[in-house]
């Protein structure tokens, strides 16, 4: 049994300590906005914030996340208002199929906290999420839009 804090709420999850955090988020906490893509921390579909840092939750053990603040896409909006990255995503019609996008949005939200006005080079370096539909250019436009919002 492990106690996780996800989006400010406590969850007692009955899993082995070496269970991937992604599993606990999806299966135990029931928060399915975070997606399973590759399972080897390469694609970024499962990105969440752990103590404010973007992490690929398939590669994080439940035991490593205990006692930390975990934020998923469901917890990104604050006080009923969508995060500015979410708003920019909608305004720029970024998603195609949408599967990778919650992870991408989480990665971008973390980037903008660190670098409020990222350059294209900053984006290339920090946002390595893989989008099979190829929405990278729309994502780039939306990142700049969110930075300037």
């Amino acid at each position, binding site marked *: 049994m492990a106690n996780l804090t996800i989006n400010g709420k406590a969850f007692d999850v009955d899993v082995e300590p070496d269970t991937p955090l992604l599993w606990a988020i999806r299966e135990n906490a029931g928060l399915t906005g975070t997606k399973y893509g590759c399972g080897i921390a390469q694609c970024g579909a499962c990105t969440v914030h752990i103590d404010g840092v973007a992490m690929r939750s398939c590669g994080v053990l439940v035991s490593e996340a205990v006692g930390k603040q975990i934020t998923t896409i469901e917890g990104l909006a604050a006080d009923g208002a969508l995060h500015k990255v979410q708003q920019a995503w*909608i305004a720029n*019609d970024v*998603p*195609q*199929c*949408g599967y990778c996008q919650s992870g991408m949005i989480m990665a971008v939200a973390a980037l903008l906290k660190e670098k409020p006005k990222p350059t294209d080079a900053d984006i290339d370096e920090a946002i390595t999420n893989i989008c099979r*539909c190829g929405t990278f250019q729309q994502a780039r436009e939306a990142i700049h839009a969110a930075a300037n919002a």
Partner: protein
Amino acid sequence: MNHMPRLNRRAFVVGTAAAGAGLALGLDLPFGGPTVVRAADGSPEVNAWVVIRPDDTVVIRIARSEMGQGTLTGLAQLVAEELECDWSKVTTEYPTPGQSVARKRAWGDFSTGGSRGIRTSQEYVRKGGATARMMLVQAAANEWKVPVAECTAANSVITHTPSGKTTTYGKVVEAAAKLEPPADVKLKDPKDWKIAGKGLKRLDTED
């Protein structure tokens, strides 16, 4: 229990198929034109691609599947460009594969894949829009009894330039739907496009 009536109906349909065309034509003669095809809400089709409602709403038929790639909006833009309609009044609908078969593939290829949706149908959907526009303008010219060459269309409004008279697509669509489609349809030069090829807000996503 339903077996016999169904058989009877089928026998009736098959048996009268040959006479059907003549019968339909006979029925149409008093009204002096071809049968108008109607959408489910009763609004007339100008052709397979374009339905216009009396309130000027334009329904553009989309024969490719939208899966987030934006084809639905892109194809609607191509039709709307040639139709010269008000983009804010455009909605879309999908014909079903069954309707496609029943209407002898009026919408062409129904397949979606390989980035072909727009590439391989852009010309005939533009022609669909242009044909509908010509019929709508012709209907207005007929009503005004003026040469069609003196009339122009923009933003769903038809104008008779010498007199300044105007009407809208929604007002002439019933008459336009009864006209024969023109044989010679010219498409706009892409450099004059105002709607097609532009990064407009998608029609299929929520605000």
